[in-house]
């Protein structure tokens, strides 16, 4: 158990012109579950592998506990890693797969047997201990990979998209198991995924990465409610937040000539972010042309356009959706972003006078 800290960590590959990852600062408290999330190629796996020691660190430093581990071998960093394709030793039984790391650490046979038995009980792997990995299903293999990490009792768990190879149903149940297990063991964890739903449900704190840089760090709900940029806004949440070109004019935010809310921000173009659940189909409001409807059972997602700009609306009604509807937008739940930089703009809902100097 230990805290983990990344300070100014960056990676430039030999022969590469630009940095794959740069300037990453993350402080991870003891026992915290941190999820690194981002689209493919954003550098999240590279970052995890630098912590594991499988990639060299080009700049900055990584601390596990009180040790700077930049120059240490992976085996000396006191971490355990769970790989996407399980990476089990195919020629060893489940028992030996779990015990191998401990054997190399010079643990006594009694300790190894006890820890393997404990992990097997926790993961319900008891009946499979003498099987080879090829005789196991995908979910069972992933459990063995987890068991291999658990028995080591490391300072930190590193997960590299561990659920990506499982089918959708198994993924959901394994996700809950990983969370329960981590809570119970209280081991600091760093988890990489490209699945924003997985990220939201697992994390104590999320780190959203884009193009090798941290876009935003925060609790899942905080990030959902206050995305720091258009990138985060469109990446976190399903359906994605609709982003529309709008204007601040005459103390109000206007979308296609409809004033949505009074606002104190300076006049000019802005990007308006709207979550689908903050828009309702109503008998008054802004006209929207409906393009298609996704029926999800409990609710449906209505995709359409306002003045040619696409947006999604969640509708819980029973009646069939017409081709043209009126939508009303919750004025308190608008998100504004800078048109040029894409960064979030804090809105001043009530106009405040300029402070006199």
């Amino acid at each position, binding site marked *: 158990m230990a805290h983990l800290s990344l300070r100014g960590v960056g990676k430039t590959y030999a022969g590469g012109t630009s940095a794959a990852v740069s300037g990453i600062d993350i402080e991870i408290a003891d026992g915290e579950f941190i999820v690194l999330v981002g689209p493919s190629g954003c550098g999240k796996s590279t970052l995890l592998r630098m912590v594991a020691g499988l990639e060299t660190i080009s700049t900055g430093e990584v601390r596990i506990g009180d040790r700077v581990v930049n120059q240490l071998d992976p085996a000396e960093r006191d971490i355990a890693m769970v790989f996407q394709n399980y990476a089990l030793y195919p020629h060893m039984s489940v028992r030996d797969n779990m015990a191998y*790391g401990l054997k190399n650490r010079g643990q006594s046979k009694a300790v190894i047997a006890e820890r393997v038995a404990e992990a097997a009980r926790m993961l319900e792997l008891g009946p499979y201990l003498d099987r080879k990995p090829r005789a196991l299903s995908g979910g069972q293999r992933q459990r063995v990979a987890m068991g291999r990490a658990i028995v080591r009792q490391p300072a930190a768990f590193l997960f590299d998209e561990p659920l990506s190879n499982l089918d959708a149903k198994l993924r959901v149940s394994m996700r809950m198991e990983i969370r329960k297990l981590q809570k119970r063991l209280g081991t600091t964890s760093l988890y990489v995924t490209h699945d924003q739903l997985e990220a939201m449900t697992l994390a104590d704190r999320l780190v959203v990465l884009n193009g090798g840089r941290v876009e935003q760090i925060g609790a899942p709900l905080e990030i959902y409610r206050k995305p720091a940029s258009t990138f985060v806004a469109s990446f976190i949440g399903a359906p994605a937040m609709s982003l529309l070109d709008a204007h601040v004019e005459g103390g109000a935010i206007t979308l296609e000539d409809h004033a949505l809310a009074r606002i104190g921000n300076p006049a000019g173009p802005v990007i308006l972010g709207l979550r689908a659940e903050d828009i309702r189909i109503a008998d008054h409001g802004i006209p929207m042309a409906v393009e298609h409807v996704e029926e999800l059972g409990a609710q449906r997602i209505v995709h359409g356009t306002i003045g040619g700009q696409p947006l999604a609306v969640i509708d819980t009604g029973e009646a069939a959706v017409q081709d043209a509807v009126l939508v009303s937008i919750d004025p308190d739940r608008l998100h504004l972003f800078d048109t040029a930089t894409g960064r979030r703009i804090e809105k001043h809902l009530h106009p405040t006078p300029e402070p006199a100097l």
Partner: protein
Amino acid sequence: MTDMTVRTRSADRALLLRLRAWYSAETPNPAKRVQFDRPLTPWLFLMPQLAVVVIFFYWPSVQAVTSSFYIEDPFGFGATFVGMENYTGAVTSSQYAGTAAFTAFFCIVVTALSLGLGLLLAVKADKVIRGASSYKTALISVYAIAPPVAGLIGMMFFDMHMGPIKDLAAFFGHDLRVGIDYWDTAGALVTISVWKQIPYNFIFFLSGLQAVPVSVREAALIDARSGWRRFRDVTLPLLAPTAFFLLVINITYAMFDTFPIFDVVLKDKPANNPMTLVYKVYLDGFKGNDIGGSSAQSVILMVVVAALTVMQFRFLERRVHYG
């Protein structure tokens, strides 16, 4: 009578129809039919290969077995049946026992050295990142040399009058006399044979190493600090299928395919030099004109190889893990 003819005719017709139906039969389950719509077609394609096997393997084998029971006239005028005499003669001769012992020694040493060195080079080449392909090409290129040529090159190195290795040995105070001294010749034969076989093993070991999943290697990197342990516990077991295959191939190589090297090195040399059983079969049969005795020896060799193969597959393969 007319009735009979008609009946026969119709029977013929029926047979013909059935034959034709059989030849052009649609396989009952089209889902399982792979490529051929006529059952004879695959045999047609197999013919050349079968012909080669029969003409160059089965037929000579049968010939060898038959002539091993005869003493043949050296000039081809008839043969006398002698039963097992050729076999007892071969097995009881002290020269044969010596050659057999040397063959075993030669097989073990050549197999062990060429496998070991091939593996060592493959492991090292696998780690090279910069200029990897030129290293690999350099290491593999020897494989392109034909065995007699390899023997010739080897002989130039070991030559008693101008070979550089002779000078090297002299520098260490050893008078190297390949072709005259039994163990000097053996050393030269082993060296040339191993040198020729290393690239073959290297290619297979390298591809075997590259087939070990990267993530499994990385998992091992996290689990074990010592590189030797990772190699012993993870890489080597995963290479076992490759190694087993190579073991069979290398023993076969040492026993049979080194013939051209022996031929080049031992030609025109005194008779007390080491040789393998295969070379002795050739010498006795074609130089000594003892067809019967040489046939008996080759039959013994055949039995030994069969036994060896069975042993390899029964005892060794069990310990091999296939992915």
